[in-house]
């Protein structure tokens, strides 16, 4: 014990003698371990930690398997769901819910500024199926999910805290939602964010009447979750659900044709969405940063150890065994690694909340992101791994073969030190190239994604969203009157070019899945469901978003008759439905209504920039009235200058109307690419850090080499070497090692880079131009990093060889 504390004291004293070295190693390791631990915290919280449900492995999403679209969840009609619940024996319970981001909202009034809340509509069995209880009060029961008893609400923890000041007496109080009083039943725990993290309230699904969404078998809008009965697998359950939906398809071919196969998958897949691949890629990226940091630290340790050969030789001559010397060196590196790991954990603790805030709305379960004992264990394991790299090899090398030569001159280590240093240099170059390849690919992918021609122009457009729901808007023509009044007022604002609106904003999802029945001579000849769906829009919608009108006309205020429904189709739908013919004037049916094409517009990316522009149809919002209302105002000059005018226009008509997302449309569009932006930003930060660490490492290796090779360089210069020859010699050796590392890194990326494929938009993970660029960038940086100390080498005074005499 006493020996141990003495050795520790000696190690600390030894490190204190070279504080600059100790600080650089400490900072390098802290940076690497801190970044890795922070990303691991996110990965663990989002992907690895159990979902906050009782026995989450028993929970499954239940959906359909469509030959054209793959697995579809959220495709049950109320009737299909009732039949499923009645026939399913492989589940202890099944429950339904309805939530569409941006659409599922309720208006809160009487609590300050009117607010549009993200609301999930859930059936009375959802909470018990998931196995969750409220943290305050209770959840919605089946009895409360029934007309007459369903004016009840459950609040999210975040909404309760931020908007209601964590009022402890909230349970039992009343909130005004869509103009009606709702009794607060309870508050959910912070970890419960089902089905999406932005959900602020849960309401009984029975509140959705036919006015909101048709309750007919052919209209599919319900999501279904189920809890498997003990001993039942998802595959067994899928077979049973498959039998049920197949039977429904046979019984109701008119509405259920093509909905005859089932898809049952663990609920975790749906909740985590498509974040598994990017998070895994991020973890790999940050691990590479840690490895580069370790290699840098290892080199510093090695250089320090080799510089102490004479001291070690003296110790050996005085009787110290090799194991004792190695032990002393290991203790010093152990102290640094332990300090680095502790500091790294502290940095992660500081950084994780910022990371969680950055990821809010982009990743699921961000409210659960926190450092726990497993994360601390991960930091410890990272530290042990770092110690093996940073401590062991340099200690063994530094204390190896200590002879008289080391005692007298410390020579003979230059070549070995250089070989090792060049090996480390190649290693970190390889890691950096790996990361740089990924960085460049994701950057290029994001550039491509954000430069897709979406089919409309978001600049200069101001947008806002409102939800016209509640009794006030349920009267005939009430919503339409509001929309007309508002658009008319907006159009009169000086500087406004066009003001239009729609149920759904572009890039945020598809339209409604209506089937268009093509007719000829009164008979149906074909049925087409437009890939992007059917969109409800107002007059001037296309003008406000600068969507080119290719033929015919836009909707007019007079287009209000259901008798002859005017429809505008996209170019792709026109080509699909009436190839080679003039689509304007063509007739078809939408449900029971006869429709005529009055115009053709350019294709628009409806479901997101990364998705193709699919065929779409547009119908007047005045006829297909919907509560959700997105407004687009094309202006001259800066959109920000019109924000207050838009708000005032709404307030003049209805002071209690909540307005959401008021601002430049460009901002909303950017939000649709927030996940690739966040992923690219983090990968970019790691790539830049890797490049910086690699450059510093190369600089360190070469500078150390130059200082160790002064004698050799002096001899070469005394024997006639020119400055340029010396620079070439030094830079050449570094570049050769870097090139070897870069080549290996490139090969590894070509073999393993496929992990990034799912994150790339219209890019191949083996894109030759970008993959060539990565090593070029790195070798250019390596050249610069080697050239600076090489210049110093070229200034070595050849007289040094005479002074050594």
């Amino acid at each position, binding site marked *: 014990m006493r020996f141990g504390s003495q050795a520790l004291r000696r190690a600390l004293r030894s490190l204190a003698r070279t504080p600059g070295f100790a600080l650089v190693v400490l900072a390098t390791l802290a940076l690497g371990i801190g970044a890795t631990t922070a990303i691991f915290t996110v990965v663990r919280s989002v992907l690895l930690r159990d979902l906050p449900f009782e026995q989450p492995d028993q929970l499954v999403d239940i959906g359909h398997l469509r030959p054209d679209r793959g697995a579809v969840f959220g495709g049950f009609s109320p009737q299909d769901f009732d039949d499923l619940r009645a026939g399913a024996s492989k589940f202890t319970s099944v429950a339904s819910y309805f939530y569409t981001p941006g659409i599922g909202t309720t208006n809160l009034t009487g609590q300050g500024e009117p607010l549009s809340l993200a609301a999930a509509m859930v059936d009375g069995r959802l909470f018990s199926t998931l196995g969750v209880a409220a943290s305050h009060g209770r959840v919605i029961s089946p009895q409360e999910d029934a007309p007459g008893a369903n004016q009840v609400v459950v609040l999210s923890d975040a909404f309760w805290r931020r908007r209601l000041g964590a009022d402890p007496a909230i349970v039992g109080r009343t909130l005004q939602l869509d103009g009606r009083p709702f009794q607060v039943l309870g508050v959910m725990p912070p970890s419960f964010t089902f089905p999406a993290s932005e959900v602020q309230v849960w309401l009984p699904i029975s509140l959705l009447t036919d006015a909101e969404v048709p309750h007919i078998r052919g209209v599919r809008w319900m999501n279904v979750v189920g809890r498997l009965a003990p001993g039942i697998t998802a595959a067994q359950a899928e077979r049973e659900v498959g039998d049920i939906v197949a039977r429904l398809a046979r019984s109701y071919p008119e509405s259920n044709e093509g909905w005859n196969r089932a898809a049952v998958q663990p609920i975790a897949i749906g909740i985590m969405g498509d974040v598994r691949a990017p998070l895994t890629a991020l973890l790999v990226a940050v691990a590479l940063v840690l490895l580069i940091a370790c290699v840098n630290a290892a080199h510093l340790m090695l250089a320090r150890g080799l510089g102490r050969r004479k001291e070690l030789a003296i110790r050996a001559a005085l009787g110290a065994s090799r194991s004792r010397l190695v032990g002393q060196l290991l203790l010093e590196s152990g102290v640094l690694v332990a300090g680095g790991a502790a500091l790294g954990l502290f940095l992660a603790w500081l950084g994780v909340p910022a990371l969680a805030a950055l990821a809010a709305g982009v990743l699921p379960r961000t409210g659960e992101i926190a450092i726990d004992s497993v994360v601390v264990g991960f930091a410890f394991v990272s530290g042990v791994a770092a110690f093996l790299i940073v401590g062991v090899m340099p200690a063994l090398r530094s204390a190896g073969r200590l002879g008289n030569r080391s005692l007298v001159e410390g020579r003979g280590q230059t*070549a070995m030190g250089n070989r090792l240093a060049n090996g480390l240099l190649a290693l970190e170059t390889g890691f950096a190239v790996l990361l740089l390849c990924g960085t460049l690919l994701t950057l290029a992918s994001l550039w491509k994604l954000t430069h897709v021609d979406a089919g409309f122009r978001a600049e200069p457009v101001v947008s806002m969203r409102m939800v016209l729901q509640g009794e006030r808007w349920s009267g005939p023509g009430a919503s339409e009157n509001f929309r007309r009044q508002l658009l008319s007022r907006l159009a009169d604002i000086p500087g406004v070019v066009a003001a239009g609106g729609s149920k759904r904003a572009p890039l945020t999802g598809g339209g409604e899945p209506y089937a268009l029945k093509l007719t000829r001579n009164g008979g149906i000849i074909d049925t087409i469901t437009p890939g992007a769906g059917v969109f409800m829009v107002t007059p001037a919608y296309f003008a406000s978003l600068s969507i080119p009108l290719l033929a015919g006309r836009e909707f007019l205020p007079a287009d209000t008759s259901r008798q002859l429904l005017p429809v505008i189709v996209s170019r792709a739908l026109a080509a699909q439905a009436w190839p080679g013919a003039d689509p304007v004037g063509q007739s078809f049916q939408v449900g029971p209504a006869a429709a005529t094409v009055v115009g053709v517009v350019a294709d628009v990316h409806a479901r997101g920039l990364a998705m193709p522009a699919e065929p779409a149809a547009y119908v007047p919002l005045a006829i297909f009235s919907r509560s959700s209302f997105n407004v687009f105002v094309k202006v001259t000059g800066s959109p920000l200058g019109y924000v207050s005018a838009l708000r005032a226009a709404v307030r003049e008509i209805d002071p209690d109307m909540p307005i959401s997302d008021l601002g430049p449309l460009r901002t909303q569009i950017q939000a649709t690419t927030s996940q690739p932006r966040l992923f690219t930003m983090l990968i970019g930060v790691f790539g830049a850090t890797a490049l910086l660490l690699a450059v510093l490492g190369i600089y360190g290796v070469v500078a150390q080499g130059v200082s160790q090779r002064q004698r*050799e360089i002096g001899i070469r210069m*005394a*024997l*006639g070497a020119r400055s340029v020859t010396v620079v070439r010699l030094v830079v050449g050796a570094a570049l050769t090692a870097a090139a070897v590392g870069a080549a290996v890194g490139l090969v590894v990326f070509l073999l393993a880079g496929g992990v990034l494929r799912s994150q790339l938009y219209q890019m191949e993970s083996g894109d030759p131009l970008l993959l060539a660029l990565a090593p070029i960038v790195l070798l250019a940086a390596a050249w610069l990093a080697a050239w600076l100390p090489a210049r110093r080498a070229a200034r070595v*005074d050849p*007289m040094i060889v005479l002074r050594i*005499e």
Partner: protein
Amino acid sequence: MIRLVNLEKAIPTRPSPTYLLRRIDLTIGAGEFVTIMGPSGAGKSTLLAILGMLDGEHTGEYWFGDDPVHALAPKARSTLARSTVGFVFQQYHLLDELTVAENLDMPLSYRNIPSSERQAIVADTLDRFHMVGKKDLFPRQLSGGQQQVVAVARAVIAQPKLLLADEPTGNLHSEQGREIMELFQTLNRGGTTVVQVTHSEENARFGSRIIRLKDGWLVRE
């Protein structure tokens, strides 16, 4: 061949500069074998570095043949040195990670001689210095005497007009030292001008002329 006129070398110190060489006037003819002697700190190595054109920071004149070395730019001076001067050091200064043949090749590689020609010259030199059997050995595998033979061979491989040696036998026992001195004598007889720095009176006797330095001054010949 070499003419030094009122040559002085000083390093800046406070309050006044420290002189390493004072008012040196010296002429060395082609084909001479000159020994520079003197106590430690007398300025022997400094003079050797100036003669070898490694050090151009001095006053006075240094003429190498018709070339005014004192007036040459550093680049021109090192070009002249490369084509005219060979060095032998007390510590041999062979490069540890190069073989004997590679050490010999090194000065040639700095003189833009084609590779095939260099190989021939190295082979010829190995033969001339009886080291063919050792060409693939590394310096640490040779005795001190053998290492100095390689160093001498490396110094003369580019056929310099002037061979400078700084205590060439300082690390050798007497028998090895004598062999090296005989080698210098042979090279001198072949036409190479030799200037050596030594403390050994016995080694000095191999030369044709002795120059003595003390405190930077040329005290007598």
